[in-house]
């Protein structure tokens, strides 16, 4: 379990805090979606939930982050990485910059966990297969398209087989096929007991993937509940969050006196 309790955070050099009193718990195997308007604090929350802020980024944190009962505050960065991994919004930030090929880039994470070579290779291959990256393995990681770089970044995280995963807009640059592949990979990772927090504007993806949605605004959690309920909450539109196509269509039908139930699963089928 990953747990944030009473967390407030201020970046180094900033006068004010950008996150306020965050209480958030990710159970093992749970996928939680994080939504909110631009500048709400989603990326900062990702940095804090992964322990990178303040461990790497600096700044000051009040409250606690605990990982499977261990307070993150006492852990060195390499010890954090054994427990929780984070995927940045910009895949160019994620890339190590020291690997000559995509294969080596993906292998870097498990290698740094100190695993045997055979195990590292096996995990790297599995991550490559899962995201269908076979055609890229010999390419220079610096010479990929934006979407390819994003898939390689996610494969690097999968290869670490992490207990907890924090992802900041993991599919922003992906085509729909890539988005679906990532969705399937994350669902399967959750099936092994990994907990995930995913910040995304693509609410259609979250709708099919998450059991719970947390909305933040102005650095505070403003809505936290089961996915279906949160996406039917009209307050989301006020936050600048586009509700999934399923929810928008259901709402449009309801205003015309049509109960979405009469369509059976057609709405879900059309939007997945």
């Amino acid at each position, binding site marked *: 379990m990953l747990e944030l309790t009473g967390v407030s955070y201020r970046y180094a050099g900033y006068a004010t805090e950008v996150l306020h009193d965050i209480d958030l718990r990710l159970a093992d195997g749970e996928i939680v979606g994080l939504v909110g308007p*631009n*500048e709400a604090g989603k990326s900062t929350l990702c940095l804090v939930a992964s322990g990178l802020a303040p461990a790497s980024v600096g700044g000051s944190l009040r409250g606690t982050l605990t990982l499977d009962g261990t307070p993150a505050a006492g852990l060195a960065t390499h010890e954090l990485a054994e427990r929780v991994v984070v995927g940045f*919004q910009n895949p160019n930030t994620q890339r190590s910059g020291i690997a000559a090929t995509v294969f080596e880039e993906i292998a870097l994470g498990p290698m740094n966990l100190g695993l045997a070579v055979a195990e590292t290779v096996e995990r790297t291959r599995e991550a490559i297969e899962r995201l269908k990256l076979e055609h*890229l393995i010999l390419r220079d990681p610096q010479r990929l*398209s934006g*979407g390819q770089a994003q898939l390689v970044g996610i494969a690097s995280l999968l290869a670490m087989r992490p207990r907890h995963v924090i992802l900041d807009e993991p599919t*922003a640059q992906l085509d*729909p096929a*890539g988005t679906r592949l990532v969705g399937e990979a994350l669902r399967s990772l959750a099936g092994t007991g990994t907990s995930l927090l995913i910040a995304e504007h693509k609410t259609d993806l979250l709708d099919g993937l998450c059991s719970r949605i947390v909305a933040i605004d102005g650095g505070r959690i403003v809505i936290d509940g089961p996915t279906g309920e949160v996406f039917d909450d009209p307050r989301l539109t006020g936050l*600048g969050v586009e509700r999934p196509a399923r929810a928008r269509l259901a709402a449009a039908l309801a205003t015309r006196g049509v109960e979405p139930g009469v369509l059976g699963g057609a709405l879900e089928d059309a939007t997945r």
Partner: protein
Amino acid sequence: MTGRALDPGAVSTSAIRTEGLVHVYDGATRALDGVDLAIARGERVAIVGQNGSGKSTLVRHFNGLLRPTEGRVLVDGADVADRRVAHLALTVGLVFQDPDRQIFAGKVRSEVAFGPRNLGRRGAELEGAIDAALVATGLDKDAETNPYDLGYSRRKLLALASILAMGTPIVVLDEPTTGQDARGVERIHRIVAELSASGRTVVAISHDMRFVAEAFERVIDARRADRARWLPSRGVRRDRLADARIDVP
């Protein structure tokens, strides 16, 4: 990316035209494989297609950042082979997909000023262009902020503002809506409409099919431009899009 998306009628008025455009990276990766396309002046065109299909490679030829391995690129009827990047910048503004590869100044206002100043704008004309770009992108209150104190979504808008301020007749946007919330997407939609209303040519790469359908007149499928040419966005065919791994809006 390969194939043809030419409208024979538009040749003489093309803002951008490519003929047999091939680009090979490092002598190995063939990103573009003989692309023929024409984009008319004043047109709003979206380029869609799967990851790694060569979309960004294609548009980097429009302002000379990449040069063809084979074939030609014509901007306003003239071959870009004879023109330097600085010269092409008068005509074509390209907003990068990754704002962090574009931004370098210490203040938002200086970042936006860089382009138009280098195009020779001065005084009231320069200040007016900067102000208009900041207002259009909603960054007017952040003029004195360090760009790296902005979140990713606003750095994307800053990259866009820097190009808008240059007032180029052709504006190319590489994935403009990534990282934007619904209001941000709406804002970019509005900017595209305003550019178009003022007679500018707008070309955008996007995976966001709702944005594409609502903001553009024509869609080019980057993988097989020959099969999907001249599809008006309202008439985009479901089977063709599925084939190109694109979601139907």
